[in-house]
């Protein structure tokens, strides 16, 4: 039995070797307790963290983010009223409106960075986290985890939200603005994505996947 009762399960419970992804110094790292982080002895960068109830947190934030993304797609984002001239857009509405008014590139980037990639990333995370809660993995867990990591820098919901704030400041003088359910869903989505992605370390996810896979294989 290990003393490290709070450490996530690993395939090998002894000290393991890890190379810093900033300076490539390699160290033998002991298992770390919940709330702790292992730092590189050369450059001080975080090698990995052990976060509290990480798997449950990532799963819960992931499911909430999934639902919020759906509501953001269905409900109006911003409505405005200029001299009785009402107009209102939803996120997909804005994308189609851009497409038809000649902004093909912007329409595509908005669809990709704000809808398609976040949707794919959350789906990947849930596909991994939910079965891992009972110590299992579904087929293709490894390539899906690789995809999840690759997508992270390209999910720009929070940047879109800052863009929405700036647009509002531009519009406030021009018209009466109403914020719709879609707007608040995007705000919530931003927090849930941060919670889901920041809630679990990739090293922990890989360790858990590795262990679950070894269990699935016949002994």
């Amino acid at each position, binding site marked *: 039995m290990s003393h490290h009762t709070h450490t996530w399960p690993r395939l090998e419970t002894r000290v*393991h*070797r*890890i*190379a*810093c*992804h*900033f*300076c*490539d*110094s*390699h*160290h033998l790292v002991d298992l770390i307790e919940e709330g702790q982080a292992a730092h590189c*002895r*050369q*450059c*001080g*960068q975080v*090698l990995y963290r052990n976060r509290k109830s990480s798997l449950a947190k990532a799963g819960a934030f992931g499911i909430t983010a999934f639902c919020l993304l759906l509501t953001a797609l269905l409900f109006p*984002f*911003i409505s*405005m009223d*200029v001299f009785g*001239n009402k*107009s209102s*857009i939803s996120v997909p*509405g*804005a*994308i189609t*409106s*851009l497409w038809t*008014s000649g*902004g093909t*590139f*912007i*329409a595509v*980037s*908005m669809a990709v*960075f*704000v809808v398609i990639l976040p949707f794919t990333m959350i789906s990947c995370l849930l596909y991994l986290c939910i079965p891992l809660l009972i110590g299992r993995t579904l087929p293709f867990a*490894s390539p899906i*985890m*690789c995809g999840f*990591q690759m997508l992270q*820098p*390209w999910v*720009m919901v929070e*940047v*879109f939200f*800052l*863009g*929405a704030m*700036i*647009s509002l*400041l531009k*519009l406030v*003088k021009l018209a009466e603005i109403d914020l719709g359910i879609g707007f608040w869903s995007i705000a919530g989505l931003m927090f849930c994505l941060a919670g889901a992605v920041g809630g679990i370390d*990739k*090293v922990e996810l*890989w360790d858990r996947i*590795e262990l679950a896979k070894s269990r699935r294989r016949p002994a």
Partner: protein
Amino acid sequence: MSRVRESALQAGLVGCHTCLKVSAASQHQCDRCGSHLHARKKRSIEHTIAFGIAGILAFIPANLLPIMVVTQLGVEENSTIIGGVATFWSMHAYPVAIIIFIASVMIPGLKFIAIAILVAAAKGYLKIDPQQANRIYWLTELVGRWSMVDVFVVAILVGLIQMGNLMTIRPGGAAVAFGLMVILTMLSAHSFDPRLIWDRLRIPKQP
């Protein structure tokens, strides 16, 4: 500076860039995640420079061309990013003016300088504290995506303001240039391998 720790590469090991598992350098594929193993990112400097130059080329039209074309009661008006900053400034909306200026002009500009510093350090033309280089690299990766904010502002305004004869907004050429610039600089930063800077400190110790 004290002796720099031995790298995995020097010890005949290779750390997986995806899952961090350490394998023997002779191995080509990671046991755990299936990724191709390579001690340093492949052709890192070449890719960083190529994407960086492409990004600078896109940065020029991004600032010169109009980002939006506003047609109000039949009168067409082009607005550029700098023009937008000036408008907010004259409206006394200083925080907004500053945010737009930082996100769309300063961050991209500083990012090109940061990438140039990192490449120069990795090639050995420039001596900088590697800790500082780590910080620059980390910031460059973190901050790049925020420049996309201009593209999203245009997206929202164009989507929202289509009021027939009263007022319409079309995206201008700068919106495309800007989006491309952000994507290219993100790829440039992503191609860079900070290990190359640390390797420079280790070379003299090797006989």
